[in-house]
């Protein structure tokens, strides 16, 4: 393999596409686990899943890789975006791209930045508490497989029940993520060359479905707790 690959424009796009695809596969697992929050009101299902994720050795290996995936995705999109800003030193006085390209495709960096802002906040809400700092709600321990484990369900469900503002922020965050993916999903295939005239429209349709599942799936959780509790 040619080592210059990743300094070329297409090579850098491949890095963005592969890291983006990896992050999307993470999102699928993340959503599947989170949906147990609304499937089982006793919290047993979610706590078992969370306990499994916290103790499974494979997940322990995947966690830093995931962080690296985010870092690489963000680093390379920043490099690409900065280069792209230099490619048109004199701007147009009047430019109309509304009919030629989708809004999401033109605002991937802004959408990504909003997703990142949300992500950092989100880590402080749950991940950091569960893993490092702890929280009184987590100490209301529950029994799973004969073992007393942290009550993540209580932490998450109380969070959405008690803070309407955060629930709304989570819904908006999910929408931003959906918009990022409505373009990102099929764009990743295109960047990797896994597309042709027939699959272009098919992948764009699948992208809409995938993005909708992600946006609706993640926002249905706060909506559920607002409505039913």
């Amino acid at each position, binding site marked *: 393999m040619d080592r210059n690959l990743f300094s070329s424009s297409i090579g850098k796009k491949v890095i963005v596409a592969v890291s983006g695809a990896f992050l999307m596969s993470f999102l699928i697992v993340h959503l599947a686990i989170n949906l147990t929050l609304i499937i089982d009101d006793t919290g047993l299902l979610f706590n078992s899943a969370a306990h499994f994720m916290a103790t499974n050795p494979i997940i322990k290996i995947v966690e830093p890789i995931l962080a690296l995936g985010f870092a690489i995705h963000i680093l390379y999109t920043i490099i690409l975006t900065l280069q792209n800003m230099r490619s048109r030193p004199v701007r147009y006085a009047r430019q109309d791209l509304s009919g*030629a390209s989708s809004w999401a495709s033109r605002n991937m960096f802004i959408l990504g930045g909003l997703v990142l802002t949300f992500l950092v906040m989100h880590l402080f809400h749950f991940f950091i508490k569960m893993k490092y700092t702890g929280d009184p709600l987590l100490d209301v321990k529950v029994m799973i497989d004969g073992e007393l484990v942290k009550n993540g369900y209580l932490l998450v469900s109380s969070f959405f029940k008690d803070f309407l503002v955060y629930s709304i922020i989570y819904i908006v965050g999910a929408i931003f993520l959906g918009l990022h993916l409505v373009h990102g999903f099929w764009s990743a295939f295109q960047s990797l060359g896994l597309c042709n005239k027939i699959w272009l429209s098919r992948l764009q349709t699948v992208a809409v479905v995938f993005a909708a599942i992600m946006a609706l799936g993640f926002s249905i959780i706060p909506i559920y707790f607002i409505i039913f509790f």
Partner: protein
Amino acid sequence: MATDNILKNLILKVWRQASPKDKGKFVTYTIQNVSTGSSFFEMLDLLNDDLIRKGDEPVAFDHDCREGICGTCSLFINGKPHGPDNLITTCQLHMRKFKEGETITIEPWRSAAFPVMKDLIVDRNAFEKIIQAGGFVSVNTGGIPDANAIPIAHDAAEESMDAAQCIGCGACVAACKNASAMLFVAAKVSHLALLPQGKTEATRRAKAMVAKMDELGFGNCTNTGACEAECPKGISIANIARLNREFLVAKFQD
């Protein structure tokens, strides 16, 4: 048949720049009594006629065939390359697309790789350099082969010809928010890679042309698709996927 109307008054906001080093600025002109049946260039010809009579410098703009086949004309009109109509070049644009009293903004293509030479004329030699890097089939001497000696599947020929429609006007670069030349390079790589004559050099070609494209300061593609939407020949971004594929295969072989 629709009859032509007369646009009594039009306001033109035109980019004027004396030389590549000049800063350049917009100058506003008014023009009277333009037939909707006339072409955009005929309207500019009227403007220049006016300017010359007044002893002013006429507006410089590129044009040659004036029938949409040479790719010489450009112009970013009211926010779009080749103006408001689809699947046409500026030389095919008619004044019936404009309204009475409208302000028409006319700018040159904007890209670091296409420096402005004068007024609305940009230097598109960067495209030439990309072609020189590999957009050809090497032919050594020998007799002329029979046209039907090499079998070519009909759909491959069609797809190749679709890509070969590219006239190298640069509207893709002008339209792209990243000023990327990917659609141009993809069209040039595709129309050759799809045919047996071009296939032999496909990997070297993709590498050389992409390297040249990157070197010349075009932006990176983010798959927004504006290039296809604004391409006067409607060249599909599926060609960009093919270019990515050709390029990656070539790089992984090294």
